[in-house]
């Protein structure tokens, strides 16, 4: 993959509440992210997840490790 196109990762959650909470924490700590539907190749659930650029992985893990509840962080 060429360098000028983002590589995305996602955080998956067990509940929408956790996703909403995590979004709030990431926003408070200024970590760029986006709420998106869980991609079809990951799950057919009608769920939402948080997508972020690969470069933000450490910060996302740090913030959610301290404050959040999530199921999994994985590449998109």
């Amino acid at each position, binding site marked *: 993959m060429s360098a000028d196109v983002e590589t995305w990762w996602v955080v998956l959650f067990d509940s929408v509440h956790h996703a909403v909470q995590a979004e709030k924490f990431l926003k408070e700590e200024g970590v760029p992210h986006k*709420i998106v539907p869980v991609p079809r190749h990951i799950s057919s659930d009608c769920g939402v997840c948080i997508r972020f650029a690969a470069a933000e992985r450490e910060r996302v893990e740090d913030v959610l490790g301290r404050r959040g509840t999530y199921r999994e962080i994985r590449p998109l």
Partner: protein
Amino acid sequence: MREIIDARGLACPQPVLLARKALEAHERVVVMVDNAAAVENVRRLGAKMGCEIVVEDKGGGIVHLHLTRDAAAPAEAAPGEPAVCAPAGGGTYVVALPENRMGRGNAELGDVLMKAFVHTLTQLDPLPGKVICYNAGIFLALDDSPVLEDLRQLKDAGVEILVCGTCLNFFGVADRLAVGSVSNMYEIAGSMTEARVVSP
């Protein structure tokens, strides 16, 4: 050597841009995508660049496009030509956004759903012809909108974003409009009667 491009999870125009770049450097390229719009747009690019195209459905919504460029053909698409994100058969429907949240009930949930909805709009095939924001829906087109990037992406792909001028005026936020054009009831009502209206 095959060049493999993983464009799953990416919305137009990214799969097309990646595919074009790869084809400029390699004769055989496989592009992995996960939505119908990307399949259509990458296929169109391949055709334009004189490629032999094999579409392989991998199941679960994943499609691999095998593009083989004729070595004799020029390695570049028409220079300067923008990536095609044609709303295939575009204009067959318009999306009305009368509120800044999706559905009634819980506001926080409504915010999350609206973000997911507008993000998903960018990946639909065909794209809507227009997105029309009115009443509290205009907040989605302002500078602090949580869906601003998605609306901009739709606009770049050729979707017209109409924003109710009366509403901008009512809420006193006309100076904060960040995407789309200020519209009036003639245009809004006209657009809604000319196409199927989809509203979340």
